[in-house]
C-alpha cells in the first residue's frame, strides 16, 4: 500500500487557484468519494481550508499520484497546474507533512489553533463518506494526537497573534479575570467600538463612553447599555475605570501625567490599563511611567504581536523535533503493515494444520464425545498460537526494520512475499494496480 499527499496552499498557489479548489465544509466527504472512484484509490481524505486544499490518499500503485493531480486540475477547471503549484509526498513523508499542518506549523499564522479542528473534521467527513480505512484512520488520528501534543508541550500557540487579542491578553495579565471590570471609551471611533466589543466579549462589565459631542456618546453608550459622559468628566472617570480606550482625533494628548496622578489616590492602588489607538496619540507617554498605570498604543500592541509571533517561530523548531519523532513512529507502523499479509498467511497455514490433526484424532478415536473433541481442538489451537507468537513478533519487527529484513524473515518461515510490497514497489510500480486486495 502506498500513501500519497497532493495539495496546494497559500505559499504555492494564488488565491484564484485556491478558490477554484476550495471544497466547502460538508462537501469534502463527497469530494473524497469522487476522488476514490476517479483516481482508483483505496482511501482518501480531503482537507480544505481557505489557505490550503490537500488530498491524503492510500492506493495500491505508485501512479495514483498523477491521477489525483489530474482530478484536482479537472476540478479547478484547467488542463494542468503550473510547475510548482502542487506539492506531493509519499508514504512516511505524508505523515510528516500532515503532522506539521495539524500543529499549525504550516499555517499563515504559525501555531493558529483552528487547523487542528479542521483536520479532525476532514477525517470525520471522509469517515462518514466511507473513504477511510486502516491507513487514513491511523494517519489522521495520529495527526490529531500529534497536533494536541505539540500544543501542550511547546509554546507554538502562545501569545496573541492579533492586535485586538493582544489587548485582551495584556489586560488579563494586569487584572486576572476581566469579569466585572469597567471600561471607558474616550472618543467614539469605529476602532474603539470594536475594541470595547472585544473586551466585553471577554467579561468586561460596565462600559462608559466619553465624547466631545455628547449625543454621539449617548448613542454609543446605548449600544453597550453603558453610561454617556462629556469629555470634561475624563479626569474623574480615570479615577474609577479599569481599562480605558482612547481614540479621539485630538491633535495633542488629552490625557496627561498630572491628570492621572491626581486620580491615583482615588484608585487606591488599583491598576489602570490605557489602550491608545488614536494617531496622533491621545495619551502622553509619560503616563506609562506612573505606578500601576500601563499605556499601550497601537504600535506597542503591534510590537507585542510581532514578538509573540517571533516566539512562536522559535517554538516551531521545538515542535519540528516532535513532528520528526512522531513521523519515525508512523513510518515504523507503516512498514509493519507489510507483515500483515504474511501474518494472515501464517495463521491460515496453522489453522489448516490444526484442522488436519483434529481430523486424524477423530478418525482414530471415533467414540470421542463432542466435549472431548472440543477440548482437543482447543489444545491444538492454543499450541499453534503459542508456536506462532514468536514468529509473528519476529515478522513485525523485521517489517519495522526494512524490506530486506522482512524478506529474509519471510524466506525463513517459508512465506512468499506479496508482489506490490515496498521491497518491489520501484520495480513493479505500474503492475501493482490489480493486486494486493488484502486489507
Amino acid at each position: 500500500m502506498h500513501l500519497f499527499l497532493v495539495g496546494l496552499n497559500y505559499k504555492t498557489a494564488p488565491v484564484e487557484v485556491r478558490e477554484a479548489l476550495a471544497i466547502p465544509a460538508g462537501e469534502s466527504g463527497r469530494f473524497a468519494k469522487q476522488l476514490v472512484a476517479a483516481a482508483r484509490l483505496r482511501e482518501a481524505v480531503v482537507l480544505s481550508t481557505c489557505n490550503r486544499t490537500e488530498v491524503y490518499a492510500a492506493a495500491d500503485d505508485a501512479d495514483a499520484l498523477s491521477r489525483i493531480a489530474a482530478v484536482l486540475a479537472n476540478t479547478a477547471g484547467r488542463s494542468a497546474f503550473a510547475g510548482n503549484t502542487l506539492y506531493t509526498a509519499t508514504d512516511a513523508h505524508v505523515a510528516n507533512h500532515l503532522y506539521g499542518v495539524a500543529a499549525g506549523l504550516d499555517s499563515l499564522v504559525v501555531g493558529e489553533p483552528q487547523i487542528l479542528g479542521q483536520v479532525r473534521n476532514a477525517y470525520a467527513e471522509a469517515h462518514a463518506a466511507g473513504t477511510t480505512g486502516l491507513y487514513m484512520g491511523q494517519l489522521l488520528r495520529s495527526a490529531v494526537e500529534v497536533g494536541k501534543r505539540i500544543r501542550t508541550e511547546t509554546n507554538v500557540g502562545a501569545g496573541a497573534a492579533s492586535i485586538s487579542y493582544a489587548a485582551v491578553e495584556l489586560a488579563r495579565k494586569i487584572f486576572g479575570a476581566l469579569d466585572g471590570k469597567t471600561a471607558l471609551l474616550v472618543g467614539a471611533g469605529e476602532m474603539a467600538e470594536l475594541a470595547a466589543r472585544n473586551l466585553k466579549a471577554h467579561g468586561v462589565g460596565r462600559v462608559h463612553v466619553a465624547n466631545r459631542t455628547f449625543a454621539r456618546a449617548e448613542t454609543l453608550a446605548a449600544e453597550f447599555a453603558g453610561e454617556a459622559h462629556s469629555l470634561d468628566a475624563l479626569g474623574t472617570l480615570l479615577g474609577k475605570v479599569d481599562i480605558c480606550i482612547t481614540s479621539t482625533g485630538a491633535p495633542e494628548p488629552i490625557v496627561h501625567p498630572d491628570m492621572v496622578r491626581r486620580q491615583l489616590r482615588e484608585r487606591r492602588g488599583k491598576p489602570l490599563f490605557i489602550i491608545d489607538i488614536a494617531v496622533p496619540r491621545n495619551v502622553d507617554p509619560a503616563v506609562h511611567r506612573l505606578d500601576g498605570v500601563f499605556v499601550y498604543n497601537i504600535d506597542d500592541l503591534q510590537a507585542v504581536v510581532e514578538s509573540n509571533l517571533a516566539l512562536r517561530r522559535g517554538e516551531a523548531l521545538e515542535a519540528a523535533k516532535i513532528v520528526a519523532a512522531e513521523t519515525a513512529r508512523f513510518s515504523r507502523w507503516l512498514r509493519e503493515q507489510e507483515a500483515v499479509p504474511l501474518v494472515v498467511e501464517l495463521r491460515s497455514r496453522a489453522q489448516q494444520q490444526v484442522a488436519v490433526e483434529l481430523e486424524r484424532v477423530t478418525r482414530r478415536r471415533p467414540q470421542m464425545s463432542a466435549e472431548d473433541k472440543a477440548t482437543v481442538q482447543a489444545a491444538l489451537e492454543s499450541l499453534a498460537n503459542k508456536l506462532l507468537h514468536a514468529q509473528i513478533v519476529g515478522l513485525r519487527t523485521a517489517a519495522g526494520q526494512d524490506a530486506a529484513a522482512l524478506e529474509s524473515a519471510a524466506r525463513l518461515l517459508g512465506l512468499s512475499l506479496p508482489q506490490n510490497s515496498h521491497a518491489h514497489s520501484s520495480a513493479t510500480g505500474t503492475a501493482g494496480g490489480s493486486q494486493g486486495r488484502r486489507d
Partner: protein
Amino acid sequence: MTRLPLILLFVATIAFALATLFSARYLRLRRNDDGFWASFCAFSGYVAFTLGGLVRVALAGFFPYGSFADALLVLVWVLSTAYMALELHWGLKGTGVFLFPVLALASGYALTLPVHAGAALPILRNPWVVVHVSLVLSSYAAFGLAGLMGALYLMQERQLKAKRLSFMHFSLPDLAMLSQLNETLITIGFPLLTIGIVFGSYWASRVWGSYLPNDPKLVWAILNWCFYAIYLLVRSCRGIGGRKKALVTLAGFLAIVVNYFGTSFLLHGLHRFF
C-alpha cells in the same frame, strides 16, 4: 538511626536545589515539563524535610528550637509548608524560583551545624516559648512569602512596563493575583507577629522581670512590627500602588532576614541561647 535526619536533610537540599533550576527554566521557557519537575522536586524536598524533622523530634523527644540550626529548620519547614499550600491552592508553577534557593541554602547550611548543641536549655522548655517561637516564625514565613510575591510582581511589572514580552510574561501569574496574595499574606502575618511578641514579652516578664528586656533581637522585632503596622495603616487609609507595595514588602522581609541572622551572629543579647 541518628544519621537518618541528616540523610533526609541532604535529600531535601538536593531536591530544593533542583526545584530552583527547574523553576528558573520554567519561567524562562514555559515548558510544562519543567513546571512539573519543579513542583515534583519541591514537593519531594518538602516531604523529605518533614520526615527528617519528625525523626529529629522523635530522637530529641521535644520540640526543637534550642539551637540555631533547629530554629532555622523550623523556619524552613513553616515557609515551605505555607508555600506548598499556596502553590497547590492557586495552581502556581515556577513561582518558587526565589524561595527554593533559600530553602536549599538553609537546609544545606543546617547540615553543617551541630545537631544537639544546647538542645535542652531548661529555660526554653516552657509552653510559652513554644507558642512564642511558632507564632513569630509563622509570621516570618508569611512575610517571606509576601516578599516573594513582591519580587514576582516586580518581574511581571517590568515585562509590562518595558513592553517587551518574553515567555516570562506568560509563565508568571498576573499582577492582580500577585498583589492580592501579597496583601493577604501581610494581613495574616501581622497579627501572628503581634501575638508572638506579646507572648514573648509575657514570658520575658516571668523570667527576667521585665516585659521589654534590653535585647537587640527584640528591638529589631519591634521595628519590624512598626514597619508593617505603618504599611497596613497607609494601605487601608489611602491605598498603595502595586510597585510600591511590592518594594515595601520586599524591604520588610529583608529587614526580617537581617534580624534573624544578624542579631544571632553579630550582636549578643538574650535571644542568643546557643
